[in-house]
């Protein structure tokens, strides 16, 4: 409990460095980590998203999606809204709804969760590019479990 997981710490710091984060807060149960890096001008709020360009629209994140650790690195997650069994495609013979690199919009179906014999199509609810699939086909998932990492536009 009181042993420091240096492996995790190093990964976190690497994540910060790679993504030019200057602050990271992580809290989970007993564990609380706060990391800050960069020059003395810590107070100056830097844009969390990509640096300002000509682009105007910033993707609006549905409020149901609270920032998790990966979201701080610029990623969003699609979470399971229910307990059930995850299916990546509509049948064993069809290709998965989405795979890494696919673009999704709010209305895109990303997977099916079966609960009580009902097959529920899960929508992305955000838009961006699927970065990673976090669960495998026919896996049991719980409420709130992250299913996909999505890089916002």
């Amino acid at each position: 409990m009181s042993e420091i997981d240096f492996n995790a710490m190093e990964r976190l710091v690497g994540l910060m460095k790679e993504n030019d984060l200057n602050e990271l807060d992580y809290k989970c149960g007993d564990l609380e980590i706060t990391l800050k890096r960069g020059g003395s001008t810590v107070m100056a709020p830097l844009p969390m998203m990509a640096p300002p360009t000509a682009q105007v629209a910033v993707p609006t994140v549905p409020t149901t999606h609270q920032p998790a650790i990966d979201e701080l690195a610029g990623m969003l997650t699609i979470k399971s809204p229910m307990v059930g069994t995850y299916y990546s495609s509509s049948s064993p013979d069809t290709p998965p709804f989405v795979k890494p690199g696919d673009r999704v919009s709010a209305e895109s179906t990303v997977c099916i969760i079966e609960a009580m014999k009902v097959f529920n199509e899960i929508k992305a609810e955000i838009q961006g590019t699927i970065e990673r699939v976090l669960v495998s086909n026919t896996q049991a998932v719980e409420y709130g479990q992250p299913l996909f990492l999505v890089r916002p536009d």
Partner: protein
Amino acid sequence: MFARILIANRGEIALRILRACRELGVQTVCVFSEEDRHARYLTLADHSVCIGPASPSQSYLRGDRIIAAAEVYNVDAIHPGYGFLAENPQFAEQCRDSKIQFIGPDAESMRLLGNKAEAKKLAKKAGVPTVPGSEDVIEDDEEAVTLARKIGYPVIIKAVAGGGGRGMRVAHNEANLRSALYQARMEAEAAFKDAAIYLEKMIERPRHVEVQIMADSKGNTLHLYERDCSVQRRFQKLIEESPSPALDERTRTELCKAAVRLCKTANYVNAGTVEFLVDQAHNYYFIEANTRIQVEHPVTEMITGHDLVQWQLRIAAGEELTLKQRDIIVNGAAIECRINAEDHAEGFRPCPGPVDVLYPPGGMGIRWDSYIVPGSRISPAYDSMIGKLIVHRPTREQAIRTLQWCLNELEIKPIKTTIPFHRAILSLPEFIDGQVDTGFVERSFINPPK
């Protein structure tokens, strides 16, 4: 026996069921809300699965989500604990439709015994005394007078649409009654826009005594004697004990037999409780039945030595009760104090918050059933009961002494708990003498006589 069951509850009863499963070699899946994610008891389950946010209506009361979790983890049965879905016949039916055994009675006998009006009719059929009164609305004053003369004074007039004491009037004699009927109708009309009233015998200073029942699916129905839960506040039990300090042998026997009769009439299977009011003259009246395991079941476990939650699982798995009535032997006296995160000095206001310090008591005859550990945070989203302290000693006098000592040993900080309240109750001569009725706490602590 089941290979794996799902525990559809939280806190101390979830842990209690976990413990019962382990001795039986049954695997466990425990559902939890996001609020309970870090609860220590979840680490003791074989699997735990989040079913929703803190609000019970989005998690522990969501039968669909619980059954989905049960299907995903391929469990054989669901134990509902108490509260939440434990007495919900629809949920029991949902389980059956999903081919999952519900650990409790079937939906039909749950409906029969769970509905007060239905249960009262059933009690009459089974020859179990109920509180005497009018079956229907009293239209006519003379009808009321005749009835009151028959059932005996004092009587209580209640508004059909009533609640919270409004439209309620007590009458101690005929003159009283005539004026009270008028006043009650006026009050009921004003409060509920419905002047309909009915009449019931008033049970004065009643004790709350309940009988533990265990019945299998082969037609064997046993009682495990009574529990006395007269120390209560607004129908919330605070202290429970067995044997009852006020029952004579004849009443005890009759009460237990009546409870068995009622459950047999309802074809009731699994653990259940039949609740009675007992007046000062040892008359008893059925009031309601609880079709589940009760919070206070450890009191019965201690004096009989039988594990009720294990029996619930066995019965649900189709086993026959290997016990006969003569095997149920009462040994000594047991008392339970419910430790709630409440401030009794401020009207039992709930006091959720952190538990930094927890020193539970221990030793001979002490049982501490609680899910909290140092570092727990009591959530405002759920019931304020955080632990049950149970003492089992050869005599009631010893049990009271040891309980007093245990309440000194037990420390829970910094949240406020009902520990000081229990200390106060246990030192009152009325409690020590076994003279407490269901109004005692309110008279002594809430509205003490000036």
